[in-house]
């Protein structure tokens, strides 16, 4: 993965800031302190890996100069270019434009930035001097895990964590002791299942025993039930005798009564009733004959009294016809004069209407005018066509007016633009010339800054040289001091030596001792000074020449650069006509002037464009005007044609030429009214004729009728005569109907009388026969015989009822006579006593049966309970399911145990055989950086510590190393990790912030070489504030690009 460019919307001090053309191998970003190098590095980190939590101690880089915190990073991978955009306000969502141009919003872009964690990236891929100097940055658990697992092909996945997870899962499934893991629970459930099944199976064996006991009870119950049935039968018989006792006694009594009534052998059934009925009929028939004879005589009298006029009845049809036409005749006589008057008025109105239509039109010829719908439609079509064309012509005239107004407005605007254009005056020929001058101005400004910097630097060197000279002068001064001290101590030594000799000679021992001590001290001082002087001389001889030559070389080099710059600046000053070096204000004024010149150029171009646009608009309006004039002309021609068609139409329909279509349509409406009028007049005339005809016809029909009925023919009041005739006809017709009815009535009475006489004869015969059948001659005799016969019959019937009751009580199976015999041999009291004895016996048996049945119920219930027990099926099913479940869980457990075991073995083998690959790679870099002083890095198995060894295999730990060497080791470890890690994953860019400052020049060069090697496979961004470092690095790594950070602001 390579960074191509990045754009900061807002981040720290940056706003709308862009870095582009980042070199695919090495890019050196050079800028002074506080230009924002760390800010830029952190910007890239955060767009790629996310923003930290606001509560963290990290610098959050709020946008100090405005903008939205965040921005875009453009990267290239093997499959193309991606744009990654992330903002702090929505830090969990990253917008990614994929190589195919599609935009995705994701919350994780780890697949783009390999499987590396943000922590590893911050410490190993993007670091400054602080991170480099601290071993802790490499020593956290997560970094160590990554460092030592690099090349395992498992990304940042923690094996330890995974092993812990497997252990947890294994423990959740099974433990040798415990009752919570799933398998342990299942074992416990299975044990319980087995116990319950065993319990139920044991119950099943009791089943047969219970069945045998139940059978015994059933047998006893059956026996007692049979006894009970027998007793019940006896009780039933005793009850029957008791119930039959009353009927038996009644029967005996009736037989006794029967003996006292005489015996009548034959008597007709219902003889007395029949005789009573026959006698009643005989009386009724005799009375009826008398009444009917009277009625017949009265009817015959009435018939002879009825009178009928035959002439009227014969002319009945004619009379009825005249009666029907009577109303019409009266109405005709009354209405005829009124209708004739109305008709005359209608004729006058018609004539008035026709006068309105026009001269030459009268009631005879006006019907020739064609007022049909089609003709009216023609008129309307012509009318519509004329109106439409007239409307169009009006519209076109309106358009012409508005267009002319618009033309005038554009013309005025154009004049204004031209005036403004001419007002703008410019100093430069064109924009290109202006642009060149502006670039030259920027170069001049840059050169001036460089010139000042160089002068400042040379001044610094001169100061250093001056200091050195001063020091040299100072160091020469002690030479004199030293000489003075030497002489002083030599003098003291001689004086004390001779003083002590003198004291010894003068025999003053205390003085001799004091002066002797003084002598020893002097000699010691002399010896010390001599030795120190020798050491200093040796040191000065090696140091001085080296430092002096470096400063002078550097000074010469800068002086030459200043000369070159000076020449260049001089040429540029001439171009801008500056006599002296311009002040910052001069430069800013000039820049301002150039910027306003640019604005004027843009404005003039804009005005020119607007003028052209207006001219084009005017041209288009002119052509539009001509087009509308042409269209208007065409419409006027069409209007003339339509008017010609109208005139032709009027001529064809015989109307004068001045009539408009609307007027003609109104005329047509009047003609339609006239037509309606004429039709009404014609109908009225027909009606008058019909009335006259009806009057004549009525009179003609009356004449023969009057003649036949002998009325005068010349009568004037025909209606009154007719009404009298009708009344007479009604009387005759009524009499005729009544005569017919009376005749029918007479015949019916006669027939009825005959029938009644026959019925009377039949009844007399019946009475005679009844008397004979009852063995009597007289009616009284007949009635006495009937009474005796009826009494005997009733007594026999009651005896039969008693017998039936007794039979019903005894039921089937017992002889009636035997039963009667039994009753004859006993008394009622004896019967009651026997029944009570039997019922008591039954109660005793029932008590015993109830007890047996309770026992039977218990056994049945117990057996049914065993039979119905389905739990065993459910339990065995549950056990089977649990066995299968435990087997599945056991396989799951076995899978985890095997996974854990093999994983452990694989880890051991890997660490034993392959783990040092990172160390090997680091060792290569470390050897290079330390100029082969330390060719070995060593990491013992299973110990996450590092040792280094020199070429004599002397081992050192990190705390034994100097600061610079330790930094080189840390850098080597990082480079080693980066190389090893990228063997299996996408190589990521590396960012370093001035990390080489503590390296001596040789090791600096060696590190540059290491960076060159690394930049072959990984993109490197090196931030520095040291131009020398940048230059040196560029010399070592040819394939690189230098970017000056201070010049890259983009507005």
């Amino acid at each position: 993965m390579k960074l191509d460019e990045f754009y900061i919307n807002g981040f720290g001090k940056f706003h709308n800031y862009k870095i582009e053309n980042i070199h695919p191998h090495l890019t050196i970003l050079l800028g002074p302190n506080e230009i924002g190098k760390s800010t830029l590095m952190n910007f890239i980190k955060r767009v790629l890996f996310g923003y930290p939590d606001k509560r963290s101690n990290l610098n959050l880089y709020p946008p100090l100069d405005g903008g939205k915190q965040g921005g875009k990073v453009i990267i290239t991978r093997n499959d193309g270019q991606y744009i990654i955009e992330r903002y702090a306000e929505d830090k969990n969502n990253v917008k990614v434009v994929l190589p195919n141009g599609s935009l995705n919003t994701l919350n994780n872009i780890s697949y783009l930035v390999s499987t590396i964690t943000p922590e590893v990236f911050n410490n190993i891929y993007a670091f400054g001097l602080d991170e480099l100097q601290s071993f802790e940055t490499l020593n956290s658990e997560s970094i160590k895990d990554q460092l030592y697992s690099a090349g395992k092909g498992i990304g940042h996945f923690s094996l330890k964590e995974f092993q812990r997870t497997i252990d947890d899962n294994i423990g959740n499934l099974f433990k040798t002791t415990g009752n919570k893991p799933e398998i342990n629970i299942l074992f416990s459930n299975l044990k319980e299942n087995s116990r319950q099944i065993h319990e139920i199976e044991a119950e099943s064996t009791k089943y047969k025993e219970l069945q045998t006991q139940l059978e015994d009870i059933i047998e006893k119950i059956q026996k007692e039930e049979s006894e009970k049935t027998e007793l019940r039968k006896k009780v039933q018989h005793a009850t029957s005798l008791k119930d039959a006792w009353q009927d038996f006694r009644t029967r005996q009594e009736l037989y006794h009564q029967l003996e006292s009534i005489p015996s009548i052998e034959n008597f007709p059934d219902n003889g007395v009733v029949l005789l009573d009925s026959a006698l009643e009929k005989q009386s009724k028939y005799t009375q009826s004959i008398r009444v009917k004879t009277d009625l017949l005589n009265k009817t015959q009298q009435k018939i002879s009294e009825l009178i009928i006029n035959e002439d009227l009845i014969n002319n009945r049809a004619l009379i009825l016809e005249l009666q029907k036409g009577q109303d019409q005749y009266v109405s005709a006589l009354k209405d005829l004069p009124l209708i004739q008057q109305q008709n005359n008025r209608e004729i006058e109105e018609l004539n008035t209407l026709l006068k309105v239509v026009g001269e030459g039109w009268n009631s005879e010829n006006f019907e020739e005018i064609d007022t049909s719908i089609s003709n009216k439609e023609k008129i309307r079509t012509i009318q519509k066509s004329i109106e439409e064309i007239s409307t169009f012509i009006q519209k076109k005239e309106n358009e012409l007016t508005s267009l002319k107004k618009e033309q005038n407005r554009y013309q005025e605007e154009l004049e204004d633009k031209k005036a403004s254009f001419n007002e703008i005056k410019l100093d430069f020929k064109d924009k290109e010339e202006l642009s060149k001058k502006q670039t030259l101005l920027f170069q001049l400004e840059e050169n001036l800054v460089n010139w000042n910097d160089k002068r400042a630097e040379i001044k610094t060197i001169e100061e250093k040289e001056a200091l050195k000279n001063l020091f040299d002068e100072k160091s020469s001064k002690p030479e004199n001091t030293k000489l003075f001290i030497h002489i002083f101590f030599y003098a003291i030594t001689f004086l004390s030596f001779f003083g002590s000799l003198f004291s010894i000679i003068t025999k003053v021992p205390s003085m001799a001792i004091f002066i002797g001590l003084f002598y020893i001290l002097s000699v010691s001082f002399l010896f010390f000074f001599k030795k120190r002087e020798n050491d200093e001389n040796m040191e000065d001889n090696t140091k001085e020449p080296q430092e002096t030559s470096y400063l002078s070389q550097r000074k010469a080099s800068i002086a030459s650069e200043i000369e070159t710059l000076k020449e260049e600046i001089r040429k540029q000053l001439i171009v801008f006509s500056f006599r002296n070096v311009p002040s910052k204000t001069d430069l800013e004024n000039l820049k301002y002037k150039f910027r306003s010149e640019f604005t004027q150029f843009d404005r003039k171009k804009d005005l020119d464009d607007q003028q052209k646009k207006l001219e084009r608009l005017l041209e288009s309006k002119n052509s539009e005007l001509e087009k509308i004039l042409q269209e208007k002309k065409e419409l006027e021609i069409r209007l003339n044609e339509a008017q010609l068609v109208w005139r032709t139409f009027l001529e064809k329909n015989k109307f004068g030429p001045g009539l408009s279509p609307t007027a003609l349509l109104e005329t047509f409406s009047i003609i339609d009214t006239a037509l309606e009028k004429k039709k009404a007049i014609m109908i009225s005339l027909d009606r008058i004729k019909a009335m006259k005809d009806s009057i004549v016809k009525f009179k003609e029909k009356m004449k023969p009728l009057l003649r036949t009925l002998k009325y005068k023919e010349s009568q004037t009041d025909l209606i009154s005569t007719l009404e009298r005739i009708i009344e007479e006809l009604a009387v005759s017709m009524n009499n005729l109907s009544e005569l017919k009815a009376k005749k029918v009535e007479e015949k019916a009475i006669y027939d009825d009388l005959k029938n009644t006489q026959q019925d009377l004869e039949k009844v007399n015969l019946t009475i005679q026969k009844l008397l004979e059948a009852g063995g009597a001659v007289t009616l009284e005799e007949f009635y006495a015989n009937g009474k005796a016969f009826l009494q005997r019959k009733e007594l026999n019937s009651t005896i039969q009822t008693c017998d039936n009751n007794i039979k019903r009580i005894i039921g089937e199976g017992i002889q009636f006579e035997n039963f009667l015999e039994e009753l004859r041999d006993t008394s009622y009291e004896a019967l009651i006593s026997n029944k009570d004895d039997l019922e008591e016996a039954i109660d005793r048996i029932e008590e015993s049966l109830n007890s047996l049945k309770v026992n039977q119920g218990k056994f049945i219930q117990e057996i049914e309970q065993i039979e119905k027990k389905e739990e065993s099926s459910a339990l065995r099913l549950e056990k089977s399911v649990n066995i299968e479940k435990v087997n599945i869980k056991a396989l799951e457990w076995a899978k985890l145990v095997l996974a854990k075991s093999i994983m452990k073995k694989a880890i051991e083998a890997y660490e034993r055989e392959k783990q040092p690959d990172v160390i090997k790679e680091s060792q290569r870099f470390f050897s290079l950086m330390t100029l082969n002083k330390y060719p070995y890095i060593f990491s013992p198995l299973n110990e996450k510590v590092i040792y280094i060894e020199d070429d004599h295999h002397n081992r050192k730990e990190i705390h034994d190393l100097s600061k610079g060497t330790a930094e080189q080791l840390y850098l080597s470890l990082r480079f080693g990790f980066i190389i090893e890690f990228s063997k299996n994953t996408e190589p990521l860019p590396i960012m370093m912030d001035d990390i080489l400052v503590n390296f001596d020049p040789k090791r600096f060069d060696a590190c540059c070489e290491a960076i060159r090697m690394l930049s072959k496979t990984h993109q490197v961004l090196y931030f520095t504030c040291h131009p020398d470092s940048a230059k040196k690095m560029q010399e070592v790594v040819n394939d690189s690009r230098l970017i000056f950070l201070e010049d890259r602001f983009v507005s």
Partner: protein
Amino acid sequence: MSLFSFVHTGDIHLDCEFKGISTIDERVGNYLKNATFSSFNNIIQFCIDKKVDFIIISGDLYDSEDQSLRAQLKFLSCMQLLDKHHIQAYIARGNHDSLKGWSADLDFPSNTHFFGGKQVESFTFVKDDIILAKIFGISFLKKDTQENLSICYPKIKNNEDFFSIGVLHCNVGNNKEHESYSPCSVADLKSHGFDYWALGHIHAQTIVNKDPMIVYPGNPQGLNPKETGAKGFMYVSVDKDKRIEPVFFPSDSIRWFINEVSIQSISTLQALKKKLSEVINKNRQEADYRPSICRIILQDRGVIAEYLQRDGYVADLLEDIRIMESDETNFVWVENIYNKTKLEMNKEAIKQQKSFIGDLISMFEKYTSDPALKSQLIQELDALFQSPGGKKYLTPINPDSEEYIELLNQAENYCLNQLQLNPAEPNEELSLI
């Protein structure tokens, strides 16, 4: 026109506890505990509806020697029902319900005839005073009957007027998939001159021979997840010329299915759910809309394998499917989903990278193939498999078995997936789930 007809069934295993099911709910439990009874009821109802003359049960009527009382009582009630309809029953005992076991000593009606175990016995079927058939048979005296019982049967002459039937619970042709009880050969059976051999023991319906007809009807109800498809009995009609026409009729009240589903062409988890739903509906149709139980085995490589390896995903999937089925009357109970899928990766290429993953793959290969390492590794499972519960309830794992290899394969998949060997780029459809 048929002279008489009979039903041949066997291996009913009344009140069987159904082995090999790992999960059930209350509804499925109720169905299962009554399943063998329901299927037997179906046969009895068929006999009554078709007015068959008799029924033959060729062994393993009950599931165990100590037959459950519930099973015996249900059987008794079925025999009483047949008796009401004048249908005879001839029953031989097999290895599961040998005469040695406990019996409730129930009073069976006169239509029920059990064959003894000491010698071959025969019953005569008479209709309208004519002997139409003779049924010969023998029951197992004990479960482990290893002798060839077929040789005890008499020889039937060719010109006999009656139709001869031999009833025997046996393993014909030494079928290795079944225990070798009463082993015999087709030739043994043919040599006796019977018209029809009504056999039991093999649970798959098989016509072993057509002349004479030697038939295993299979069991009338599948008893474990491996006994898939339709299960039933034979309906045999015999005409006056002893021509027979056996027809298979299904009687199972619940049907079993094993569905192997390849994930090769399935790219999203949503698509997988859809596929499983289709599979379940197909089962429902094939089960002829009776309740059924299926076991789903996900297999092969595919992009979704990585997700299926995640803890709890398959369990959630199973739960979802069961919820979908909970309202179905003719439900399909998914007993379990076995994930035998493999990660989509080129192991050989990974091994070449010399990474830890490569070494891990090689390590798994070593422990899959090296016999010494295999027996060493398997000992690590003793903590569970040799525990008291383990010995009693767990099936031991043989290091030379396919099961061991599958187990190692799953362990390897688990590790590789957890190591995030192949962190997939976000997939819209996957992330939506």
